[in-house]
């Protein structure tokens, strides 16, 4: 498919899912009333629902989906591994641990932004560890192994915190948060993540030529004038900003970063640089759509969006692998 057409199509899909998300919720507000409430103000209750509940939720769906899609595509390109996803370098697990620790200590309730701050601190710690490892001329495999180790360690510590948690309610809260959700987020959350994600997108975009060159391996890329060590820093920081910020406001949402690049890649010329924007738009559409499903699929009760992405994602991925057994990438 033509690249411009693909981007337009995915952009339109994201827009559609965004509109659907704005129109979805327990309060019955008609489409016209919703738009009026969003734009002009309109009647008080509808305005509050639209501007303070649905808008931040829909925006976060787009932003987080975009970030996870871009980060997944960049990591797969950088590690030259179709199984790579943002979780593989341990950043989302560490961010989760940071948030969980705040739940455990009770600091999570201090401020609305305490939890995101804890998660960002967790992500930052993992980045420092990854950078320390990759600074010493590490290979890509070392980076993956370090990420897996970091991920397991953060997972183990999260389990430990759950084990030690003072009361069942705290454990419930932690588990619920770990499942990932966009419920009850505010515009403050949007303003918190937007600059971080923006920086992350910029870092990944800046490394796009490097990702193409790395299709020829590290030695091949280096022969093309690419500074592999410097681009490694850029990619790690970009992914950390995207995924750290995403996890900070939504908890851990899996599968988007893994599946979306695979879904979109066959529609591109498969060069990693050409995949970044489509994967971001695809991620935005998919997560926003999954969030709508999580709110509507079983009537009154809401599912966690992380559960929905996993439930849609895993079987779909399996089908994809089955259908194109020969080659996915």
């Amino acid at each position, binding site marked *: 498919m033509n690249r411009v057409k693909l981007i337009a199509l995915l952009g339109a899909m994201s827009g559609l899912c965004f509109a659907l998300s704005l129109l979805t919720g327990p309060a019955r507000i008609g489409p016209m009333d919703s738009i009026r409430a969003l734009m002009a103000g309109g009647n008080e209750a509808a305005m509050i629902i639209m501007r303070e509940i649905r808008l931040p939720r829909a925006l976060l769906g787009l932003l987080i989906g975009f970030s996870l899609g871009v980060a997944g595509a960049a990591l797969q390109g950088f590690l030259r591994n179709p199984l790579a996803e943002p979780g593989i370098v341990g950043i989302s697990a560490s961010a989760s641990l940071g948030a969980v620790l705040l739940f455990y200590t009770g600091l999570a309730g201090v401020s609305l932004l305490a939890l995101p701050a804890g998660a960002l601190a967790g992500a930052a710690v993992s980045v420092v560890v990854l950078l320390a490892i990759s600074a010493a001329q590490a290979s890509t495999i070392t980076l993956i192994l370090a990420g897996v180790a970091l991920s397991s360690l953060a997972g183990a510590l999260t389990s430990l915190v759950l084990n030690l948690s003072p009361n069942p309610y705290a454990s419930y809260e932690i588990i619920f948060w770990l499942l990932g959700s966009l419920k009850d987020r505010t515009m403050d959350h949007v303003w918190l993540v937007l600059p971080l994600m923006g920086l992350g997108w910029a870092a990944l975009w*800046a490394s796009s030529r490097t990702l*193409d060159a790395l*299709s*020829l*391996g590290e*030695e*091949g890329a*280096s022969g093309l004038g690419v500074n592999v060590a410097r681009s490694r820093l850029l990619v790690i920081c970009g992914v950390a900003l995207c995924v750290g910020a995403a996890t900070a406001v939504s908890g851990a949402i899996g599968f988007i970063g893994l599946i979306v690049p695979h879904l979109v*890649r066959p529609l591109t010329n498969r*060069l990693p640089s050409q995949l970044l924007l489509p994967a971001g738009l695809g991620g935005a559409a998919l997560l926003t759509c999954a969030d709508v499903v999580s709110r509507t699929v079983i009537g009154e009760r809401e599912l966690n969006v992380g559960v929905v992405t996993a439930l849609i994602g895993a079987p779909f991925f399996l089908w994809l692998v089955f259908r194109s057994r020969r080659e996915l990438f």
Partner: protein
Amino acid sequence: MPLSATSVSASLSGRTVLHQVDLTLRPGQVTGLLGPNGAGKSTLMRVLAGQLGHGGHVGLDGTNIAEMSDLVRARSIAWLPQARVLSWSISVEAVVQLGRLPWHDWRSVMSAKDRELCAAAMQLLDVTSLALRAATELSGGEQARVLMARAVAQDTPVLLADEPASGLDPAHQISMMASLRQLAGQGRTVLVSLHDLSLAARWCDRLVMMKDGAIAADGEPNEVMTNEILREVYGINAQIGRDECGLWLAPLGLT
């Protein structure tokens, strides 16, 4: 541009692999780098390509390559590593176009000149008919030609190719060597490592034979391809003949 190594030494994992090597590659020549496995050929090529830290001095037309920026070096020296890595099933055309990467900044697109150079490189390596195929689905020999076309498309005064002819059928081995000759004929400096002694003897202007991290012999093919040197470097006996096209050589057995 001449590329010179002066007292170059290099170590891998603490083991010295190159001992004080002196070598000057001249423009307009195809220089063949020969030697048994582990002689240090690839290491020497990586040093010359500016890909490996080393002792001594490597100069391109008098400029120390260690002081060049990555991009300036990539615009001067094309380096084809021995390992043939192709990570995604991108088209042959896209692989060859990667060779133009050093000539672009982050926002530029392929110019008419870029496309022309890529088309010429693909023509030279006989991969034009494969242009739209996925490079990962090609045979090993076809991939070797595609990657060589990528290096040629880089359009640099110096070309260093590590075993580009291995895995190629005889016809394509010959046409690969003929293309290297053609590139040298345009005034480029070409260094190629080879294991096929006949191919080296017939197609290279100059042969450099390495053993144990040092240069054991250096000269025109008829000076280097002697039974005495082959015995010493490879430990083989060979029958060496000559026809109107040059030397031919048949390894007969171990000494």
